[in-house]
């Protein structure tokens, strides 16, 4: 009998405690400790800013200005013209075609990181898109649940996963933001790309150039879309691009 009473009392206390907690929270009567303090909200040590090494800033800014001039005076018009001339299905088909041809780059990127599942999905997608999707124009693999698109991997990411530092930030002429690690990765990516020199499967340099130009034109609207988004509303487009690129690459490597 005594034990039953004791049990009842404990249960009563437990419920009362729970009730107090719940009611105080629901009524917004929580203690100060339940809210973010000024320090937690505005203090930087809770969320350290991303540090981008930029010893070549003066050179980079000149290259950035040059790129900006080309983007806004040449690429923008190419992108606008292409979007006006090409019907949406053609645009999508061309974009899918070139994306499909980038398979070797993504495959190597996955393999170098030991992502066997990713490598397999990329291989399956390439096989299905190339056959059922008529040389990749139609993304037939999207129809299969287990072949949904995954984040593209590249050599720069693989180097990052291996622990290689990014090195100084770079702005490459025409190509835009990068860093030393990603530049080396970019050279490696080109080596395994079947459409790019030095190991292109296309012998004829005229055809090679035509492929390169077409690929650039099909990508130009997306590039300009991203570029203008970053530029609009930026206090300093150079800094915004530098930070945006670095954050994105950090995130891709962490994933």
């Amino acid at each position, binding site marked *: 009998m005594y034990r039953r009473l004791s049990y009842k009392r404990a249960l009563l206390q437990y*419920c009362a405690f729970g009730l107090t907690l719940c009611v105080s929270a629901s009524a917004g009567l929580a203690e100060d400790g*339940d*809210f973010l303090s000024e320090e937690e909200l*505005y203090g930087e040590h809770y969320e350290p*800013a991303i540090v981008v090494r930029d010893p070549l800033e003066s050179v980079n800014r000149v290259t950035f200005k040059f790129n900006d001039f080309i983007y806004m005076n040449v690429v923008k018009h190419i992108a606008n013209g292409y979007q006006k001339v090409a019907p949406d299905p053609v645009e999508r088909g061309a974009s899918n075609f070139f994306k499909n041809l980038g398979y070797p780059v993504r495959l190597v990127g996955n393999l170098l990181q030991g992502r066997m599942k990713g490598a397999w999905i990329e291989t399956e997608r390439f096989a299905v898109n190339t056959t059922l999707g008529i040389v990749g124009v139609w993304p037939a693999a999207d129809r299969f649940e287990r072949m949904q698109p995954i984040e593209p991997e590249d050599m720069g990411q693989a180097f990052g996963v291996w622990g290689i530092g990014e090195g100084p930030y770079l702005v490459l002429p025409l190509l835009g933001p990068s860093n030393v690690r990603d530049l080396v990765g970019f050279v490696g990516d080109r080596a395994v790309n079947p459409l790019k020199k030095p190991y292109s499967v296309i012998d004829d340099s005229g055809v090679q150039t035509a492929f390169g130009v077409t690929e650039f034109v099909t990508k130009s609207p997306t590039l300009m879309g991203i570029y203008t988004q970053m530029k609009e*509303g930026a*206090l300093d487009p150079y*800094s915004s691009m530098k930070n945006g690129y670095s954050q994105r690459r950090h995130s891709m490597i962490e994933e």
Partner: protein
Amino acid sequence: MKYLSMIAYVALFALVAVLPARADESAKLAATMEATLDIMYLDDYKDYTSAQRQDAVREVLESNYDLQIIIRRAMARNWNVLTADEQIQVGNLIDQLIVKTFVEGMEGQNRPIIRCGDVVEVTSKRVEIPVVISFPDSDTFNVLYRFGRLKAGWQIYDIVAEDISIVSNYRQQFDDHFRKKNGAQLIEKLEKLLKEEKLDVSTIKL
């Protein structure tokens, strides 16, 4: 025993009442986003100028969230470099710039579809809401809204679009600015930006 059961039920009810409080943040965010998109796309607003749209969007945003929190977080240590007057001016100018960028960015685009996910509890004071923004026949963007629990309620303290934190991005820009320049020059720069015409990329889809 009846007394005990009653307390247990009341406690359970109170707990159930608390849980949707966080889930409601997702609904509130979705409603706010849809309300701003209404201003951009509904016929009721078709005669609005860009400036009028910006005012209407700002009104919707400010009635639900405090943009100054994001602005001050982006300014970080540079906030204390400004005088009190400059802080007010900079806060207002960046507020206007954010809204201007949103309105001008949406002009000419098709109305996107917004899907707010479930609230993810990071800590008892921080939650995140993943949102997928899909533009018809175009790209899809993943955006993460970060909320902090303040005495004024849950407030957005950062927006992460495609893995890029808006606070971190602006913080870099402010840091780079204050390495060589001061608050007055920042105000001058912001005023100049607000007067700038929209970039002529009207036909480029996102």
